[in-house]
């Protein structure tokens, strides 16, 4: 059993007759992994399964070699922030984080230090002595994040962690996730904001109707989708001429010209052939300022693989 991966082996979970997730097999390496899928697709179920809050009906789960049935060991290395506002009404931000830490068995001094450090990381020190019940939505979100990171976990599981955060705090939080990932930790999060997922994720897991639709690095997942032509945006000076040259290529299925005649949207069934064609065009003396993949992002993957309503 790998001690550096989160592993799901043929995991199924049913809520009575309702499907939670079905036959999920995943190997999640360190880094930032985003769970993407429509409402009710099974994202939270996956998170609850890996933190042992629910147990699978079938299959096995291992988090860095530990079983979710063993919270005593698992939860020492795992931090989980659910999407619920569950802080007690009597607790201040500092008390909320400290109380959780005492359950890990740290000394009082260690608890104080860690709680304060966690609040610092999420930018809540100014409000540390105010009741959580009086916090704004974004502050409560940060308090939830603080209690999840206070014990310095190796695996961070976060359900919609960026909801309700203002742009500055959002940027700081993403930087924190990146810092965690750079240390070889796992940051697993679900998000409804696909552009954000695109920006921060090392890998994505697309889930729909309780089944894994795709997993891996965004580029690799896109490469696997062969029935959809790849889209590229070309910035070039002689767009009409380049378009006519590209039309002679068999693999090019569609070309749209920008209104300013300085760019093209090209759809191709063969990325390698397209790359070679561009080289030929450039060698022939045409100036191509830039080539940008237009559908190597979660938004496009979501559209191709899940379609319909967004998460």
């Amino acid at each position: 059993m790998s001690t550096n991966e989160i592993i799901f082996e043929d995991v199924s979970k049913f809520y009575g007759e309702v499907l939670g997730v079905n036959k999920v097999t995943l190997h999640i390496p360190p880094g930032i992994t985003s769970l993407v899928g429509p409402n009710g697709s099974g994202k939270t179920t996956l998170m609850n399964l890996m933190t042992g809050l629910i147990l699978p009906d079938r299959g096995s789960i291992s988090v860095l070699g530990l079983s979710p049935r063993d919270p005593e060991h698992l939860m020492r290395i795992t931090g989980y922030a659910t999407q619920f506002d569950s802080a007690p009404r009597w607790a201040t931000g500092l008390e909320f984080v400290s109380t959780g830490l005492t359950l890990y068995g740290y000394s009082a001094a260690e608890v104080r230090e860690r709680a304060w450090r966690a609040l610092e990381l999420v930018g809540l020190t100014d409000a540390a002595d105010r009741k959580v019940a009086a916090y704004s939505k974004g502050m409560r979100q940060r308090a939830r994040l603080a209690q999840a990171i206070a014990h310095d976990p190796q695996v961070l599981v976060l359900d919609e962690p960026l909801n309700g955060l203002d742009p500055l705090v959002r940027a700081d939080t993403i930087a924190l996730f990146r810092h965690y990932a750079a240390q070889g930790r796992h940051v697993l999060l679900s998000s409804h904001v696909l552009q954000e997922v695109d920006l921060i994720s090392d890998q994505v897991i697309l889930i729909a109707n309780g089944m894994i639709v795709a997993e891996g690095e965004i580029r690799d997942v896109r490469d696997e989708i062969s029935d959809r032509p790849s889209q590229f945006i070309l910035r070039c000076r002689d767009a009409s001429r380049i378009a006519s040259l590209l039309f002679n290529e068999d693999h090019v299925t569609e070309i749209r010209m920008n209104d300013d005649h300085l760019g093209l949207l090209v759809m191709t069934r063969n990325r390698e052939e397209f790359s070679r064609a561009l080289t030929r065009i450039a060698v022939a003396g045409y100036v191509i300022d830039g080539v940008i993949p237009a559908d190597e992002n979660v938004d496009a993957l979501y559209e191709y693989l899940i379609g319909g309503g967004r998460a």
Partner: protein
Amino acid sequence: MAVYRLGYQRYQGPLTTHWQRLLVLPRYAWRRLFQQRLVLILLVASLIWPLLCGGYIYVSHRLDLLGSLPGNLKDAVEIGGKFFLVFMDVQAVFSVLLAALAGPGLIAPDLANNALPLYFSRPLTRFDYVAARMATLVGLLSLITWIPGVVLFWMQAGMAGWSWFAVNWYLGAGIFFGFALWILVVSLVALACSAYVKWRIVAGGLVLGFFFILTGVAQMVNAVLRVGWGSLLNPARSHYILWSAMLGVDLPPGPGVWPCVIVLTVTALALALVLERKLRAVEVIS
């Protein structure tokens, strides 16, 4: 695939023991409970009867004060099983009231606020959580049950002398184990009601109802069917019968000791099952 510099180091410092960690929850709960005026008033009221009993024991050993009493009254003040049975019976009522006041606030708010995932995202099992919640009630109820009971027993033993203790030592054991069993059942009832109903006031009512309504139902069954086993439906009565046996007092009419043991065991298991079913980190509504 990104390449990561594995710079993360796990905490290697000292940690408190498992049981010390579990006591964190009762500690917080007690602090909040003792901030409630009603709990304090009831707690103080619950200690009046033990004080009176203590006074009674003291007076019973002041033979100079008793000298003027008629013979049958002297017999009546004898400190023995019957005396401690009455003491336990009265304290049992107070303990139900206290459990009805303190118990519902232990689990119901956690369920109502969806806070269980917060607890179970710590190194804490469901069993640990229930044990910690139960410890809150056990600690609170101990203050008004076996602790004053055992103090009274030692007070009597101290005043009556070694010969009394040698003959009546089982009374001390009976008080401790009798109350321990009672606290277990009362705590389970309070926790199960708290887990079953998210609204604290209703949960408190349910705790009282469990004991007082079942008392009425048991009496009705006995009266209507002209039987004695109806008392088995009343957990308080079952305990009374058990305590009578433990304290060497004549058993009251009705079912014997073993049927009471079986009924109480089944009751405790059923309540534990309710907790097992209701205390899930994620509530499943299908």
